[in-house]
């Protein structure tokens, strides 16, 4: 009986041990990724294949193309658009052009056109060709010395005196404006020289700035030219008005003479 009891007890212990062992085995089987490992190797190989084909194909080829394009663009810029040799050659050309023409042009500019032979005309001519705006105050006195002042009130009719005065005024105004214009012309020539010097050392990227500057100077010149044209218009208009005023006077005088002749003929 005791043996039977011991055997039963031993069997129960064995069953309990087997249960524990079974539990450990189940946990081990569940945790062991044996099948998954087999699948993972296939996936990894497939992934490697995908990565290598992507690196060789889309990425590698695209980068290779980018390299070619980048090199081509670089070469195009350096050899076609802005070749350094041509840049230097162009600068040399500007320098040579400047050297070739500046002296000749200065000589032509320096030629004096003064032609008066008598003392007063020489003074006046020298003054209005001097290109010194500071001297315009001396023009009226020299002008009056050469062309005489407006006739006195008792010597000429008021209409004639007014005509003389406005003619003299427009003439002197234009002479003064011409003096100012000559001076600004000198300034403009200096600016043109500066622009040319700048062009000699300009880079392709800064040349547009120099060009813009030249355009602004050009606009200044145009404005000054317009002022000279305005002076010429005033002169021409005054001349026409003067001729017209004389025509009016002659017409009145002729009518008066006609009336007088008719009166004489009517009363012989």
């Amino acid at each position, binding site marked *: 009986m005791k043996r039977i009891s011991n055997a039963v007890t031993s069997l129960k212990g064995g069953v309990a041990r087997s249960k524990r062992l079974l539990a450990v085995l189940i946990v081990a089987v569940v945790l062991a990724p044996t099948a998954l490992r087999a699948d993972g190797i296939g996936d990894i190989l497939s992934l490697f294949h995908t990565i290598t084909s992507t690196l060789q194909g889309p990425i590698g080829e695209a980068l290779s193309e980018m390299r070619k394009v980048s090199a081509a663009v670089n070469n195009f810029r350096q050899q076609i658009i802005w070749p350094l040799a041509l840049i230097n050659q162009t600068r040399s050309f500007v320098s040579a052009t400047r050297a070739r023409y500046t002296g000749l042009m200065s000589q032509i500019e320096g030629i004096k056109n003064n032609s008066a032979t008598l003392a007063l005309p020489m003074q006046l001519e020298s003054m209005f060709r001097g290109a010194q705006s500071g001297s315009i105050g001396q023009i009226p006195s020299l002008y009056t010395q050469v062309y005489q002042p407006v006739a006195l009130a008792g010597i000429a009719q008021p209409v004639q005196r007014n005509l003389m*005065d406005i003619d003299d005024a427009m003439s002197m105004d234009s002479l003064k404006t011409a003096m100012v214009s000559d001076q600004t012309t000198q*300034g403009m020539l200096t600016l043109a020289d500066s622009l040319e010097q700048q062009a000699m050392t300009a880079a392709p990227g800064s040349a547009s700035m120099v060009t813009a500057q030249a355009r602004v100077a050009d606009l200044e010149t145009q404005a000054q030219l317009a002022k000279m044209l305005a002076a010429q218009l005033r002169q021409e208009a005054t001349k026409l008005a003067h001729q017209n005023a004389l025509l009016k006077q002659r017409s009145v005088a002729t009518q008066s003479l006609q009336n007088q002749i008719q009166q004489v003929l009517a009363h012989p």
Partner: protein
Amino acid sequence: MNRLTLSRLWKFLRNAVAALCGLVIVIALLPSKARSQLGLDPCCAMMQVGLNTISGLLRNSVAMPLGSIQQSQQQSANFEQQVVFPMAAISQARNMALQFEGQFVQMRQLFQLPVASATLPMPQMLEQSLLSGNPGAMPQITSSYYSLYGAVMPPANAPQPVRNMVDMADAEAQAAMKKAVEIDALANLELQAAEQINQQLQTTAPGTSTILEAETAAWLVRANAYTQSAMAELVRVRSIELANSSGQLKFSASHAATLQTTGSQVLQQGVQ
């Protein structure tokens, strides 16, 4: 008591050994890192080959082209910075605009110097209007003009053709004077615009200077148009002047013929 204790101790040890065995089996079955590092798994070799291939591809197919591109772009950047857009040349161009500003102001001031020279009241009034550069002074030009040069003769004082000619010449002379005032005013505006554009040039960049160049070019076209307009007015003044000379010659010829006829008639009457 001792036996019971020993029995419990034996059970505990037996269970502990069983658990340890189970744990060893589990650890042995798990794909632990230690095993991979030891190179015991065959897939590790494949991974090594694959990674080496990828590394080689990254070096040859990716890194080399990227390095080449970087080198090319660096070269391009250096070229642009040193040859095409050197900072020194850009600064030099900006400084030139600064230097020009003073000269432009000086030129504008020169053209503002007073040049009026008339001495009598009426010529002074007309001259003041003509030199004002003020388009608002147009009505004053008309009144000053007629005060100075007189109006068209009344019908009793001159034949109608002569009056027409005189009126036409007055009209053109006044128009030319008014145009001169307009041109002066426009030229002043052009000078102001030139100075403003020049100020803008002092801070411009190579990329934006072309915009300013375009703006200045537009102003130049405008200025040329105004100059052309002034030239047209000048041509008209001279045309009217020429027409006046022609008209006077015609009148002289007509008057001479009339005088000859009248003289002949008078002489014939005297003979009879």
